[in-house]
Every structure is written in C-alpha cells, then in structure tokens.
C-alpha cells in the first residue's frame, strides 16, 4: 500500500531572503528581489541584474563542530546547507544538527531519513583557479593557445623543479570536492544525520521537481519516512553568466535597476530572464509519521510525473516544437493520473515561466493542450519575476510557493510588466484569497527533461 507524503517543512533561500517567511511575505507584497549584481562585476555582460542572496553565511546554518567544513563548500553547497537548516527548523524536526542541545534526540532514526537534492554544473571559483594557473605560464610558443599556460609547469614532477611554488599544488588538496554536485546532499546528510537513500539529480531547471518525485517514491515504497528534497544552485559566477548567455536566455538590462520589470512570464516579447542564486529544501514526510509527531503540514504531494522530449532543446539540434510541447503535456498527464485527478481539479498552476519567450511559449502550448478552454480561468503563480532563474534550485522555490499558497489558501501577487496572451492568466495581479484544492507545479530543462507535481490541500 503506497503511503501518502506530506510537506511539513520549507526552507527556501533566495534573493528575497532566507527562510519561508521572507519568501512568502515578499511575494505577497509584490516585491521583486532582482537588482544590480554585486557578487561580480557584470560590466562585461549585457545582463547586469540578478537575484543575490544577501547577508548569508553558511557558518550560521551549521553546528559549531562543522564550521571548518564551510571552507570546502562552493556557494551552491552553502545555499543547500542553509536551506536544509531552515527547513528542519520550520518542520520542527530534531536532527543530528541539534546534538549540542541536551535532551533533544532526533525525531527519526538515521536510516529512515533520505535526501534528494538537485544540483547544477558547479563553476569553479575563477579567481582561485586563475591564480593557481598563473603560476604555470611559460613563454614556449607551443603554450600560446592556452594563453601561455604550460601543462608541464602545472605538473609537479620535474627535474630540476621549474618553480618551487608553481603548478597544481597551488590548489587546495580538497579543491575538487568543493565542486562535485553530490556535495550538496553529502553535506546535508552529514550535518543532519541522514543515512537512508540519497541522490543528486542534475537535470538543470527540472532537477528540483525530479528530486521531489524521487523522495516521494522512496517514502512511498517504505525506504524512508522523511526526506530532505529540493535543489539549489548559484548561477551568479562568470562561467554561469557566460553559459547562460550562450543559451540565449539572458535579458539585456541597459540602465535598468528593477529586475522585476524585466522578467515577464509568457509575454511573447519578453527580453529574456535574469540569473539568480538560491533554491529550496522541502521536508517530505510519510503521512502517518508526520501525524504521529503532530507536525504541521503545508500540503500533500499527491501526484508526480516526468517525461522526456525526444528532441531536447539543444541549440544545435533539429527543431520539432510539437514534440517539445508534448513532453510537458505527458508529464502533467502522468502527474494527474498518479494523483487520481483530472484537469478540472486543478485550481492553480505554479509555472516554470522564466520570461524566456520561446520556452514560455512551449510551456503555454503544453498547458493549453492539457487544460484547453479552461486555461484562462486557472490562476498562474510565477516565481521568476521575484527571484530570477536559479537553475537546479528553481523548481524547489516554485514548489515552496505553491505549498504556501495551498496552506494559506491565498495566491501571492503576480508581477508581470509585460503582456501575456489572454489565454493564460499570468498578468500582474495583487495578493488575493483563493480556494486551492490542487495546485500543479511544472518545470522543464533545455535538455528536454520535464516534470510535474501536484500539491493538494490537506483537509
């Protein structure tokens, strides 16, 4: 007998702030957090705005005994560690992280705790690597293609030694571990003592929702009672910006300072999206266990579906937009079947829409195919104008917002400075009460992975 899964804790980290309160209050106040980039100098890019998490230090979210480990955390890992901590607190769970506090034994046995955290391709810190590489330059013409960098000087076995301080030894011994995608989940499992199934999904923007689906499967089949689930990524690095520019998604920002007016979901003339850092960890719990400990539950994760596009959207691939649409449609239909619902049961949709016109149009065609003439009556919830595109963390923030909407029976404000077509209810709107029985959350990657989840009101 499959077990129901509740969302009992939310930890989101975004430019709106750390924790569930800043996210919900910011969205309800209609306040975008997208502003001028300061973590790097964006003057070499046409897109100069984004979503930065301010006043955030990972050491504040780990036990004292673990503070040294923060040194080996890339920003993506720090965000996940922060999100996990606020999620645990929000859920009222006791984990190994509370070991310093007397009389607090963990809510669950370690072997019953799982962890599924989506991650991106983490960019190495450019300064650290460049400074190390600069020790290995040569004036050999053969090295000119790499800007003078010499692999011979990079290696450390040579007689006589070329330069006592040169080469790869300038990178810290654990350098690579800062950037392995599975380190988000690994640090979280170590800090909170999760010894059950864990995984790291790396499917770009689809990663977070796919991770929720994986946690649900694990709980449903009885391999864990509680899971940390979601994703996190920082796109705010030189390489992150450059890769995003290469995909054609970045909005030029000119002299603008208000990013919330630039990200315009479903507007066919939208200029593109803005990058961000952040993500979220949701605490998923088996219903009986959650009830037994008297946990407050935001929503039930009642359905999940995934589907792959047979074309993908690599810029080099053959174009077949109709198949692309169908992939998201198939994912939504699978989620509805899984939840035992029909399209008529869905009251709102937490959309993926990034303000990237071609992709938003694809999403819209899929939604139209599933919901037909009813689509204009279904409320759309969008997160991108508030917090930007946070890659592998994106879906977790969508899901967090959807869970909060279901819990509060309230739709947060919608920001949209553009003109979405009339067939989708995505234009600007204030915060308003709503009857939300079932909310659909959708996400898609440009690699063609699509996923859909349904969050339902607990009655």
């Amino acid at each position, binding site marked *: 007998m499959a077990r129901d899964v509740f969302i009992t804790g939310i930890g989101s980290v975004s430019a709106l702030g750390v924790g569930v309160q800043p996210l919900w209050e910011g969205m309800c106040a209609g306040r975008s957090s997208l502003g001028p980039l300061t973590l790097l*100098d964006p*003057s*070499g890019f046409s897109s100069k705005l984004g979503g930065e998490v301010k006043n955030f230090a990972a050491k504040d979210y780990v036990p004292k005994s673990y503070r040294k480990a923060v040194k080996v955390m890339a920003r993506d890992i720090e965000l996940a560690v922060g999100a996990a901590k606020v999620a645990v607190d929000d859920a009222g769970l006791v984990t190994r992280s509370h070991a310093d506090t007397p009389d607090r034994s963990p809510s669950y046995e370690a*072997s019953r705790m799982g*962890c599924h955290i989506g991650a991106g391709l983490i960019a190495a810190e*450019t300064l650290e690597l*460049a*400074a190390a*590489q600069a020790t290995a*330059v040569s004036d050999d013409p053969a090295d000119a293609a*790499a*800007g003078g*960098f010499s*692999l*011979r*000087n*990079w*290696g*450390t*076995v040579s007689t006589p030694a070329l330069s006592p301080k040169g*080469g*790869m030894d300038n*990178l*810290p*011994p654990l*350098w*690579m*571990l800062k950037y392995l*995608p*599975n380190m988000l989940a*690994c*640090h979280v*499992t*170590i800090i909170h003592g*999760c*010894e*059950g*199934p*864990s*995984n790291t*999904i*790396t*499917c770009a923007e689809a990663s977070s929702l796919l991770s929720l689906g*994986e946690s649900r*499967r694990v709980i*449903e*089949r009885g*391999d864990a009672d509680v899971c940390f689930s979601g994703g996190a990524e920082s796109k705010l690095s*030189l390489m992150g910006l450059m890769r995003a520019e290469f*995909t054609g998604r970045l909005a030029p920002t000119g002299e603008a300072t208000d990013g919330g007016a630039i990200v315009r979901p479903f507007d066919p003339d939208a200029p593109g999206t803005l990058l961000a850092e952040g993500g979220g960890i949701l605490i998923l719990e088996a219903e009986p266990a959650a009830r037994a400990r008297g946990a407050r539950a935001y929503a039930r994760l009642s359905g999940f579906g*995934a*589907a*792959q*596009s*047979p074309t993908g959207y690599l810029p080099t*691939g*053959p174009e077949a937009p109709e198949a692309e649409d169908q992939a998201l449609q198939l994912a939504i239909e*699978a989620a509805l079947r899984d939840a035992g619902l029909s399209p008529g049961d869905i009251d709102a949709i937490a959309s993926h829409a990034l303000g990237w016109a071609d992709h938003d149009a694809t999403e819209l065609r899929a939604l139209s195919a599933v919901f037909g003439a009813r689509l204009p009556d279904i409320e759309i919830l969008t997160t991108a104008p508030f917090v930007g595109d946070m890659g592998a963390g994106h879906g977790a923030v969508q899901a967090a917002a959807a869970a909060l909407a279901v819990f509060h029976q309230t739709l947060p404000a919608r920001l949209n400075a553009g003109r979405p077509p009339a067939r989708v209810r995505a234009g600007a709107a204030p915060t308003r009460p709503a009857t939300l029985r079932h909310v659909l959350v959708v996400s898609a990657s440009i*690699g063609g*992975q699509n996923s859909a989840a349904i969050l339902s009101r607990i009655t």
Partner: protein
Amino acid sequence: MSTRRRVTITGMGWVTPLGTDVSGVWARLVRGENAFGPITRFNASTFATNFAAEVRGFNFEAHVPDPGKHTHAGLSTRFALAAARQAWSQAGLDAHSSLDRRRLGMYFGAGEGSLDFSNFTRSNLAGFDLATRTLNDQAWATEARQRLSAPVEIEQEPNSTLTHLAREFGVRGPAYNCMTACAASTQAVGEAYELIKRGDADTMLAGGTHSMIHPLGITGFIRLTAMSTSREDPARASRPFDKDRDGFVMGEGAGVLVLEELGHALARGATPLVEVAGFGSSADAFRITDIHPDGKGAVAAMLQACRMAGINPREPGEDGRPQVHYVSAHGTGTQENDRIETIAVKTLFGSLAPRVPFSSVKSMLGHLIQAAGAVELMTCVQAIRTGVLPPTMNLRNPDPECDLDYVPNAARDCKPQGGVRVCLSNSFGFGGQNNTICVRAFTG
C-alpha cells in the same frame, strides 16, 4: 500494485578502455589484460599520475546510424550513445517499431562533459592580474566570449547525454540524470529498476558515462591523493586489495543496460539475460573525505539489496554454498576503500564471507568514475551467463587486513561448483554514497 512487477536486463553495451564489444572485452578481462598506459590526450608528463586507461581508437561514426544528429556531442555523450546502441540492438528493440516511447524512460549517471581547457584557461589568464592578484571580470568575459564556443559549453551540462539519447531512441518517458560521484551509474540502474517496478515505465535505458581524463579532472584527483602514482609501472599500478596498493587508475567509458519489465520483454519475444533482484542505497553521513570506519553504509546498501532479493546473506543455500556467488567490489585500490569494503563484506556475510568470491575489475579497466557501476554490473551479468569470475589482477602482496577471496590474478571457472547464479555489484562515492545491485540468473 497487486502483482509484483519483475525486472530483467534484455540488452547491454559498453565502451571501455579494453574495447567496445561485450564478448571481446569480457574475454580480455578473463585473460587478466589491462589497458593502462601513458596519458595521450594532453601532456601529463610532469603530473604525479601521468598514466590512465584511455579509450583508444573509438570510432563514433561506426556505432550510430546517423552521427549528424549529434554534431556537437561531447566525448562522454558519444561513449553513451555507442554503448546504448549496442544495448538497444541486443535487446532486439531495433526490430520493435511498435514500442510505446511514452513507456520508455532513462536513468543515467552521466558525468559532466569535458572542459574546453585551453580556451577556458586562456580566459582565466586574460582576466588575472598578477601584480594585484585580482581578477578583472570584464577582461575575462571579453576573452571568454571570443574563445569559448556556445555548443561546446552547453554540451557540458550533465543532462545533455539524456538529450542525445532521447534524440537517438525517441525516448518520451521519465528521464533522470544523477551524479553521485563514483556510485552514480549503480544508483541510476537501481532507480531505473525501481521505476519499472512502480509501473512508471516498462523499459528503461540505464547506465552511466564519464571521462575525467582531462587536465583538471586528473589534477583534482592528484590533489586528493586518490590515484596511484606508480609512474614507473603503470601496468601494475591498479592493485586492489594488495598491501602496496596506492590508489586507483583513471579510466573512462560508458555502460548502458536495457531494463525491462518481464511481461513486456516476454510478450515481444525478448530474451532476459538476467533478472534484477534487488537494490540498496544508503549514505554514510560521516565525512566528505572518509568512509565510515565500520563500513556501515556499505553494509546497509548490500543488506537492503539482499533482502529485496529474498536472500539472507548469513545463511548458505540448499546446495551448501553461500547464496551470493560473487561480489563485484567497488575495489578502487585505495588503502581506505579496500580495507573498509572488506570489513563490510565480512559484516554482511559473517562466517560465510571467506567463501564469497569478491573481485575488482578496476585492476584491469581502471576506474570509470560515474560509468564504473554500470560497466561492473555488466561483468556480473557476464559472470552469470558464462559461469566464470573475472580476477583481481596485480594482487601479489597480501594485506593482512584484506583476507577474503579476491579471485587473485586469474579468472575462475565456477561451472564445476554449479556456476554463478547470484551477484552483488557495489559502488561507493565520495561523500559517503553507497549503492548495491543484486542480479540473478533468469529462470523463468
């Protein structure tokens, strides 16, 4: 689901440093051959580890009917496509045009694509000011935009292997890529098995692919001191369970399996090669660099796989043999892994442990990182189908702390003992991720 869905393997393919056809590579493994030699892909002459197990002479065009669909695909994606084509053909899916692609999914542990090292480095140096030891972001961006290529950068995303596989085979079902370091493709196959059991798909392409034989990949592992530095004798550098082992040898490649629900396979006349009987996954939750000294995460993963397969690892079977006939070790050849994996196997099997053969093909293939688990699982399938166990090579100086039956230095024919019917395949990753799959002979 009221009736239990059983999952079989109906096809498999690989690209390895010892070759690309399943039976040919298997024959070389049984002969104890290895593929270790100097790194040729870049100048590693001064690297503490200057050798690896490279895939040589790989001709992508010979493996896929229309290579033009994959113009910009990176090396590891090409490995995966070639391996998947073999698996697809063996499963007889070429002839099965009515396959419902919505019921065909993918679960991969594909690694990131290889970095465009020269142009990336050039950008870094253009941005770096030696005098102030600062980075000029604008100068970096100007150089990078000029030097880097958009398709090459986008293809480095770890989900792009899925995209190409979908394009090649028309996949429309659920698709996932996971990166749990060296445990990734065992996890991918295990999760694919679970997806089919749950009913989310009838057929899954599952496996892994990876190449880290590039300057920063090798650098990263050298800095971690995880690789052998036996520069004077690369052929013997990978020596799992040997007292003098000094780390792994980097390999590269791909392993892809077709997993299929039994009824689906039989209905279309496919031949199950073996049955997937169990899967276990756990986290050490201990340290990012060290394995838990008791191997408790490894024990948990193996035990769960056994339980799911209905096996009590401490009880002999009706024939008096241990119920598990072979364990494919993670067996990297690092001091720590091999010692603790041995402890874990002893804990799992108790007094039966010395009677359970337990070898590491990494002594011949090297460590294929994210592809290792799928390739090693395939060696278990071959062991079941041929009754022969692959050896652990280069095991010359026994380590008193590694005192199990590692099938040392020569393959073993188990047919006289009743063959090989049940195998476990272990993969453990940095950060404490443990995955084990149990496969057994298919008997209807």
